[in-house]
């Protein structure tokens, strides 16, 4: 039972990282209909920035500064590279974001070097007793932070003026434009939000283990998360992210006992298998919108 609770908490912890990343993907997708493959690079850049800043301005200060800086960087990328592509096929734009990802990542790698950098977080690998099981503090912090961020995002989209504008653009760009919404600034803002979320996620990934050049691969786990949840659904992104985290963690703990033929470390690719299964049943994800087409 303890083992189960531990791996559940671990799964929810890493799952909340995936949720943060998935929220970024979905926010960009909803406003621009593009999946941004640049998220991994922003995540990596955020973690690296924190590793440089935290000795100077404390860990929390560094996280805030990094999230803002990466948000501005993402906004700049959107303005310079993505804006000229408005109206082009979404696939082409998605490939451009791969190009952005490569460039940002190469530059960031130059700041990492070959060693592992520490982000200077106060938790490390410390454990705490939770419902009778020893769990790592950092997972609880991740879960709590993600819950707060998700709630804030919900309030932002539900009640703020800009949030309303963003929902309007997601619903119909042309109509929103006709109503006086600045669609361009909505695009920019959604990239900035996604960048900030990615930076936050990057810091969480780096807690405990540190930052190295391979960190970006973690961000790709958010892709099955958004597909499972449905590309258009913010709630789906959170659910998908948590599901992916828990599935991965439970497979890691128990798969050797009940399905050793899948090979060790199957947990790492289990989310992709789950994604295929979900799509066979529901081609638009659990909470995705079914597309209505007319000629």
């Amino acid at each position, binding site marked *: 039972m303890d083992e189960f609770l531990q791996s559940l908490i671990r799964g929810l912890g890493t799952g909340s990282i995936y949720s943060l990343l998935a929220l970024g993907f979905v926010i960009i997708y909803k406003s621009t209909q593009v999946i941004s493959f640049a998220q991994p690079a922003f995540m990596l850049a955020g973690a690296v920035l924190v590793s440089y800043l935290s000795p100077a301005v404390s860990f929390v200060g560094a996280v805030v500064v990094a999230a803002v800086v990466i948000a501005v960087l993402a906004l700049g990328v959107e303005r310079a590279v993505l804006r000229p592509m408005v109206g082009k096929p979404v696939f082409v734009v998605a490939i451009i974001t791969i190009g952005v990802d490569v460039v940002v990542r190469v530059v960031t790698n*130059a700041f990492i070097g070959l060693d592992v950098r520490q982000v200077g977080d106060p938790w490390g690998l410390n454990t705490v007793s939770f419902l009778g099981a020893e769990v790592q503090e950092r997972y609880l912090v991740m879960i709590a932070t993600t819950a707060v961020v998700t709630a804030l995002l919900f309030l932002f989209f539900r009640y703020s003026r800009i949030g309303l504008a963003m929902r309007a653009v997601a619903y119909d760009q042309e109509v929103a434009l006709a109503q006086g919404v600045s669609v361009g600034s909505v695009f920019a803002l959604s990239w900035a939000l996604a960048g900030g979320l990615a930076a936050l996620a990057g810091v969480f990934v780096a807690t405990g283990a540190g930052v190295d050049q391979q960190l970006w691969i973690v961000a790709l786990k958010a892709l099955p998360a958004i597909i499972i949840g449905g590309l258009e659904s913010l709630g789906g992104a959170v659910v998908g992210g948590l599901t992916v985290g828990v599935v991965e963690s439970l497979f890691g703990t128990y798969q050797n006992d009940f399905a050793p033929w899948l090979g060790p470390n199957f947990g790492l*690719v289990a989310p992709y298998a789950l994604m295929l299964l979900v799509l066979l049943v529901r*081609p638009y994800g659990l909470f995705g919108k079914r597309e209505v087409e007319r000629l």
Partner: protein
Amino acid sequence: MKGRPELYTSYGQDMAFLNTRPKRAWSGGLLVIALLMPFLITDDLLQLLATGFVAAIGAIGLNIVTGYAGQVSLGHAFFLAIGAYTAAALSGPETGRVIGFGITSLPVWLLASGLVAALFGVLVAPVAVRLRGLYLAIVTLGLVFLGEHVFREWTSLTGGPGVGRPAAIPELFGVRLDQDNSVLTAAQMLYLLMFVLLVIFGVLARNLVRSRVGRAFAAVRDRDLAASVIGVDLTRYKVLAFAVSSFYAGVAGALLFVVNGFFDPGSFNLLLSVQYIAMVLIGGAGTISGAVMGALFITLLPRITRELPAVLPFISGDATGVVTVFQVEAVLYGVLIIVFLIVEPRGLFGIWVRVRNYWRTWPFSY
């Protein structure tokens, strides 16, 4: 009337394989130059070009499914891997470490690896038929990750990560093409082999896409709903596109590592898929010659950047220094994708078309 180059009196002439006189001249010229190449340039360049030709076969395959039929696939690396391992297992000798069947005849394993990959393409297609756009892209991406896992763990087939196994053994009519003999060196023979195969597969693909099937693909790409309304069987053509594309990928995968002789399961990752996408997009989506140009460009890119330190002294040639050649290579790769898609969406093929149109009406090109 007969001598006018662009006067077509039937659809047959218009749709012909080489429908203009300049096209015939250019193709013939390029063919002669490519066949003379082995006797003009050094062996290491020949090897690079041979790899480029194989990549071109793979890129043509991706172009059929993505450029012509409009089904975005990030899973090309998976199909390349299927081809590579089928060929290696069929032709390799049985050792204690890896399985092998010792069938070294090139046509046999080449065809087999294509067919096995095509079979996997058909298995994947039902998922693809239900999905659209970016959903499909991410699902095919998932395929690459699942494949990577299987190839990492199935060590009796793949030799395991970091170790790998020898690539397929190319033997044609009793002659080992990967070993020097009294007439030609290995590099020259492999170059000629890859070139001949590229021409064969290129012509086949060109013929496919200018046929009824190719027009159906284009209809599915442009608007699948409209295509189904005018009677194109969507499921059938999507499955067909995946099968043909995977066949090409399987063939390319089987040949891809013959030049180097060795490969390990880590090679078939997301990066490889993205490279093939880049070949198609930089070359020009929806054109066969574009895919070939893009493949050669991406394959030759590392070699070109390696020459940069001689021209630009602030770039250092080894892993030390502020700006290394490896960083330049990676950045250039990303920047090229961005620049091509923003400035010239039709890729290298589009540039060629513009140059051609300029000279066609010269000196009245305004």
